[in-house]
């Protein structure tokens, strides 16, 4: 059974204080690992897809990295508008294109 564990559950940062979110996963063959951002009362918003160990992707203050067991979402010099819940999900290589999500990390960035 595919499993995704995200840590920490919640993270409070000061504006400009860089940090990382962790996503540990077990999957029987990985097709892709996805990061989404979710604001309160909204649906998840796609950020990145990573396909193989060693891959990195960046978007503004966010950088996602992938190893064979985990992924990190690095947030550099965050701003209050980066406050949201960040969700990690895995898509198995076999079978259908469904995603297994973690519970998310709730990030709060204070000015």
């Amino acid at each position, binding site marked *: 059974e595919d499993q995704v564990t995200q840590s920490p559950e919640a993270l409070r940062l000061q504006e400009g204080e860089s940090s990382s979110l962790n996503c540990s996963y077990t999957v029987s063959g990985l097709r892709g690992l996805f990061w989404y951002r979710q604001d309160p009362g909204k649906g998840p918003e796609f950020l990145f897809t990573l396909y193989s160990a060693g891959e990195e992707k960046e978007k503004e203050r966010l950088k996602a990295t992938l190893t064979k067991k985990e992924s990190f979402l690095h947030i550099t010099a965050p701003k209050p508008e980066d406050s949201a819940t960040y969700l990690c999900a895995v898509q198995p290589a076999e079978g259908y294109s*469904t995603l297994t999500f973690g519970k998310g990390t709730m990030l709060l960035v204070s000015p």
Partner: protein
Amino acid sequence: GAGVSQTPSNKVTEKGKYVELRCDPISGHTALYWYRQSLGQGPEFLIYFQGTGAADDSGLPNDRFFAVRPEGSVSTLKIQRTERGDSAVYLCASSLTGSQAFFGQGTRLTVV
């Protein structure tokens, strides 16, 4: 439309009633997914459509839940004899096969 549209945005129903939740996917997206998200949890897979057919319905919790996509576009999630435990946000997503899924805003279902 430009994105995935879900209606209604909020639904309050009495225990035991029947409800229908609608999803309009992004035009041209052949894959459509329903997920359910409870407070403080990540989205939980319910059912996946490829075209008109349900390719994987292994996430439906029991036979009170059913979903259709008769013309390969709009989908309806149907819940019979609703229970208080069905209260959650129901999310729909669509994608081109194999690519990233785009989510709607969700329908918040409250069973009282």
